[in-house]
């Protein structure tokens, strides 16, 4: 049994499927943080969150030197007041299919999510926000090891 419940998995979907935009935070090894909103998001297995690497720049630099990352729900309506924390990595398009990262098989995850724009096209994204061309470079993967509350009165409390 993983940490991601069905309620959480419902939130970790693209907006067009009832999910939410998320914020992905990383940090340089010396503690300079970076936070960016991400639309292409999904849960994977029972403990992982996938985000499409479309235009990530500083995020990838940070993850290459410091694997710690956090993800929050951009619009925490209802009970969706979660921050997910754990190690993260980047799986680039073209990585060896036989490679693994924790429980993830690189070939399998890229086969399923390596062409995200075809699988879940950003049809709900307003034209003035949508990128002129979606160019996926890979996947950002976070292994959820801890879920904490982002709700005002309980912020920082461990949920699981």
């Amino acid at each position, binding site marked *: 049994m993983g940490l991601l419940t069905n309620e959480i998995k419902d939130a970790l979907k693209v907006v067009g499927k009832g999910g939410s935009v998320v*914020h992905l935070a990383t940090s340089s090894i010396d503690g300079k943080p970076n936070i960016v*909103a991400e*639309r292409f998001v999904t849960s994977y297995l029972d403990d992982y969150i996938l985000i499409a690497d479309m235009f990530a720049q500083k995020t990838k630099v940070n993850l290459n030197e410091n694997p710690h990352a956090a993800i929050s729900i951009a619009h925490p309506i209802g009970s969706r007041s979660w921050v997910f924390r754990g190690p993260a990595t980047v799986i680039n398009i073209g990585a060896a299919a036989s490679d693994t990262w924790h429980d993830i098989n690189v070939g399998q995850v890229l086969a399923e999510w390596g062409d995200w724009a075809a699988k879940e096209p950003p049809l709900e994204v307003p034209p003035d926000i949508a990128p*002129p061309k979606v160019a996926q470079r890979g996947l950002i993967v976070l292994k959820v090891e801890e879920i*904490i509350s982002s709700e005002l009165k309980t*912020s920082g409390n461990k949920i699981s």
Partner: protein
Amino acid sequence: MKLTPRIENWIESFGVHIAIADDKGQITIIVAEKTSVDGDVVTVDLSENQRNQIEEVLSKNDYVALAPGQLGAIRAPYQLKGSAHLVNGYLEVEIAEIYCTKPGPEAGIRLDVLGYDGMQHFDESRWTDLAPVNPS
């Protein structure tokens, strides 16, 4: 760097998500609903739990990153970075770096180096919604 009216309007309407990291690079996010802007300072109204959550980390590393929350995560793609301090229970962030995070070829452009007039021109040439419509 003084914030443009567009950045100010959006983060005052929808709050911010604040990324903080300790001196070992362990990171977390605080979700704040109430923010105000005065020049280059963003003031964030924190709950008691949020203050307790970040106080020790800030004492060792005061550099933070902010991104607009809620609808602003989509329509106001900016990232702000700067030094943060707790003042009378509020978090005050003096903004030193401003980035565009709009998905596409302009992702990652550093805006503050354009100067205030350049940032205003950047906003006004790309956006018609200089303030949210019916924020709630």
